């Protein structure tokens, strides 16, 4: 009836249930954690017993986190996820064997730790990637002298699944923006033989990151993905479809500037460049800072940061219906050229007509068809 047998197991061999109990976390607290987890993953409360059972008997998986051409915003976002002290539990739950910002080790010791974790858990570890991979010149971004490309390909070999976190890893992000000087590509463009979950956003919402991690760690399966590889549970709706300002869009009431009457009344931000209609993310429902608010609620148009190429969409303050290039210039130059061409062609036609008149040519129906 005692649990003394678990005392002798190493941390890696214990199940999550055993880990939590050994840390003095009661089962009641564990149930609270499972309930919060189910809510966070947008699952029905009927799933709570299933989650409890799955987590209870799950072993701590090894997680290797590779950071490539990134700004560390995604890691910052993740460490802001306060939900239910899920944070501390996730990090107790998973064995985060390698992470530049969060690990204590450095230099050779860190790289050796990574290689050891890969060997020990070959085929079973979870690979999390943030940042894009430069193909232009491997020297653009290296870790311990190893290029991002080499490190990714080598580490991906033994991964059970890959989670690409942030728009840089999922679609190339800001390094990929025109003219893409480093030749940045996404994880999905390089790896074709492993399941990849894309969690885009610049950064992604904290609970979305942890929700996806938790889903995989709890059930060992990939959540249902859309055509761009994003979990439908968080990216299935566009911001526009869930925006609380939608009634204003439908009625045609728009804010024209950031400080006019319409803006103060909370009218639609379409004219100020909102990309909500073409952006899929959970910002309008899950929101940021534990459900405090999101950009549109704060009065700023959506940037579309969870979509590919959002940096090249013509500018954040250019409305979706507007062209991205300078059309006025094109139109003026074209008009000038066309006037010249028109004059030339007109002169040619006139000469043809005059010579036809002089030669007393008959007008036929073919001439009229022109």
């Amino acid at each position: 009836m005692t649990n003394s047998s678990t005392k002798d197991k190493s941390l890696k061999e214990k199940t999550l249930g055993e880990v939590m109990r050994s840390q003095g976390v009661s089962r009641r607290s564990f149930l609270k954690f499972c309930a919060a987890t189910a809510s966070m993953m947008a699952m029905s409360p009927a799933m709570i017993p299933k989650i409890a059972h799955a987590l209870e008997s799950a072993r701590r998986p090894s997680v290797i986190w590779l950071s490539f051409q990134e700004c560390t915003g995604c890691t910052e976002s993740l460490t802001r996820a306060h939900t239910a002290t899920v944070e501390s539990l996730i990090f107790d739950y998973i064995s985060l064997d390698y992470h530049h910002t969060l690990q204590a080790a450095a230099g050779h010791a860190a790289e050796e730790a990574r290689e050891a974790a890969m060997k020990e858990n070959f085929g079973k570890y979870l690979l999390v990637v943030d940042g894009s991979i430069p193909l232009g010149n491997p020297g653009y971004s290296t870790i311990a002298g190893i290029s991002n490309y080499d490190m990714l390909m080598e580490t991906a070999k033994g991964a059970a699944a890959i989670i690409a976190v942030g728009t840089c890893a999922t679609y190339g992000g800001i390094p990929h923006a025109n003219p893409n000087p480093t030749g940045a590509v996404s994880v999905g463009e390089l790896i074709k033989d492993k399941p990849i979950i894309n969690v885009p956003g610049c950064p992604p919402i904290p609970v979305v990151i942890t929700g996806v991690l938790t889903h995989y760690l709890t059930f060992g399966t990939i959540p249902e993905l859309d055509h761009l590889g994003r979990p439908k549970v968080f990216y299935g709706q566009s911001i526009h479809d869930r925006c609380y300002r939608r009634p204003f869009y439908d009625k045609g009431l728009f804010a024209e500037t950031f400080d006019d009457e319409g803006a103060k009344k909370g009218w639609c931000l379409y004219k100020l460049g909102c990309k909500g209609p073409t952006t899929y993310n959970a910002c309008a429902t899950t929101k940021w800072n534990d459900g405090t608010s999101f950009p549109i609620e704060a009065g700023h148009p959506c940037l579309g940061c969870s979509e590919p190429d959002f940096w090249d969409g013509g500018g954040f303050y250019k409305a979706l219906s507007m062209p991205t290039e300078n059309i006025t210039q094109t139109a003026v130059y074209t008009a000038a050229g066309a006037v010249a061409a028109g004059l030339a062609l007109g002169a040619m036609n006139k000469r043809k007509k005059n010579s036809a008149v002089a030669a007393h040519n008959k007008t036929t129906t073919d001439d009229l068809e022109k």
Partner: protein
Amino acid sequence: MSEIEFLNWVRGPGFQIATIIFIAGIIIRFGEILLLGRKENLAEAKGSEMSSGLRTIVTRSIPDRETFKRSTFTVVAGYIFHIGLFVTIFLFAPHILVFKDVIGFGWPSLPTPVVDAMAVVTIIALLAVLVHRMRNTVLKFLSTREDYLVWFLTIAPLITGYMAFHRIGTTAPTLLAIHILSVELLLVIFPFTKLMHTFTFVLSRWYGGAISGYRGVES
């Protein structure tokens, strides 16, 4: 190509190409028409050409009683879809933003539900016009491939625009990109078809009024 890349292309290079062909086409055709000139009329002028011509540009908008009685359907349906096109293109807020970007200024818009309703009415009118064309023996005989092509190019932006606004069918970026692409297709083919009447109607109506005015008769 991802759906966002597709959308960025139609909003970028696609728009440029369409603008160039559209503007060049219209100006060149206008230039050709104007430079062809008219044969000198050696008869004595009995009235003013210009005043009759200018007046006729406006008065031709009112259908005369005989034409109305003989082709009521064509006149009514025609008016409906022309007014509908004007409302949906020029009085819808997101479209006015496009003009603002290109020509530098905009104008007030109509409430969105009104434009939405007009779009539906216009689509119905255009469908009715096609059915009429295909069922009337004379019209069917006279119809060329160009007539059907032009009809398609005109209704496509309306249908794709409606679908994009109400998000029917597929993801939002794809719907919006298809709508913009349909407009670009219309612009590109425009100068080579009878759609030029959009601009040349001014010349034809002026000419009709002018020759009548020259002869001193009503136009």
